[in-house]
């Protein structure tokens, strides 16, 4: 096992994959969006509850996917709690990679960024199938 693998599957990622803090669905919710990665079949839905001042108060994700995509969703939702929707719109690809603390090749990058794509499509109010990769660039 080389060093790179230990980094990629660092303790935090395995831990968040196996014991996520934000797994579930919110019903009712203020924002809900889902999308998939056709390459690997990952599917992800994110639900948010937002208060009158536009602050994210509750967040949950559901669906299935690899450790990277699931851990990324869990960490991302944790990071947006208490943030305004404007702040959520400003979250970047780098922010997500910082949360994960790993470097990824182009294929796994899609796994890591699926959660950001779904979250942003939700807060921008995009319709089904309208989210594309540009949204996270």
């Amino acid at each position, binding site marked *: *096992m*080389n060093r*790179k*693998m230990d980094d*990629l*599957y660092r303790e935090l990622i*395995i831990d968040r994959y*196996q014991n996520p803090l934000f797994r579930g669905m919110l019903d009712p919710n203020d924002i809900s969006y889902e999308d998939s990665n056709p*390459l*690997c*079949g*990952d*599917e992800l839905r994110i639900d948010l509850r937002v208060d009158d001042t536009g602050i994210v108060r509750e967040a949950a994700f559901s669906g*299935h*996917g*690899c*450790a*990277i995509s*699931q851990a990324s969703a869990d960490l991302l939702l944790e990071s947006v709690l208490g943030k305004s929707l404007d702040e959520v719109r400003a979250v970047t690809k780098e922010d997500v990679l910082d949360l994960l603390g790993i470097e990824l090749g182009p294929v*796994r990058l899609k*796994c890591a960024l699926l959660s950001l794509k779904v979250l942003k499509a939700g807060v921008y109010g995009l319709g089904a199938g309208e989210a594309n990769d540009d949204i996270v660039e």
Partner: protein
Amino acid sequence: MVPVVYLDSTATAQKPRQVIEVMDHFYRESNANIHRGIHVLAEESTALYESARGRIAQLINAPSARQIIFTRNTTEAINLVAYSWGRANLKARDVVILTEMEHHSNLVPWHMLASERELRLEFIPVTVEGILDLEEYQRLCELNPRLVAFTQMSNVLGTINPASEIIRIGHQAGAVVLVDGAQSVPHFPVDVQALDLDFLAFSAHKMCGPTGIGVLYGRKTILEGMPPFLGGGDMIKKVSLRSFTPNELPHKYEAGTPAIAEAIGFGTAVEYLQGVGLESIAMHEKEIIGYALERLEEIPGVTVFGPTVEHKGGVASFTLKGVHAHDVAQILDADGVAVRAGHHCAMPLHQKFQLDATVRASFYLYNTLEEVDKLVEAIYRVKKIFRT
């Protein structure tokens, strides 16, 4: 660099030196367009291209090399049948029988034609054991299908389907029968006359040949009766400003300059496989898959999909409990074991077994029992990282 244990030949096979060299030699020594020009190079390249066709005809025991149509790949071969034969012969409410284990290439062309022509698509179910339910197929045949199209070997389950029986039943019902040979022709002897099939599609790159070239074999009377597919040079006998007369077989279906070097490489790949012997390749793979199933099933948490070894070619698709297929493949890759993870272009089959993704290890003539051991060792490493 770590030597790679390549267990992804179902996606594409590695190429022997002979194939690479013959293509290199062609470009250096004989490069010219075919079927036109009288110079020596044009004659040479035409002869090489046509002799590759002959070699391929011999491999599948085609009555004539004229029945070997070069296409880009299996997908294009099946699309050719859908566009040309399908559009000329199928009308609203006609029944087309497919199976639940089809690869997207033998599914989507029929979806497209079905929505254009309002066809009725029916599917032979896959049983929990991973084989086709032939009793249900018999019942479906009472619907008077016009076409039966099925894969001779599943790229996910590894199931080798009883082609002779499926073809016989289809013919009795009056259907034309297309066989997707993408996974069968590379791995065991396929005889189009013994099987009595109407169409056979396969790709070079899965059988040690280059990408970008495949074959559609067709029954002569059917191919002669079909309208042309793509229009252009080479597929015509005569052209005037307002009309054209199509060329004879096989050129009628080969518009434009084809993949000449690739066809020649394909011919050499076939020669290489014949040198080893398709029977020997099948036996070798049987031994490996038998051993792989035994070893994989010993690993706690591993579930292998598909039938028992008697009905199976060299494909083992599996899941590891608590770890997503993508993560398994990534960690295996770090140990130099190349496998595929995902739905392997067979999403409906994965939906049926309620899987989002599987890991697939597939074997070919160059794989060894030691490589199976390496695969198993690497899976134990995945279990360690994921603490399962």
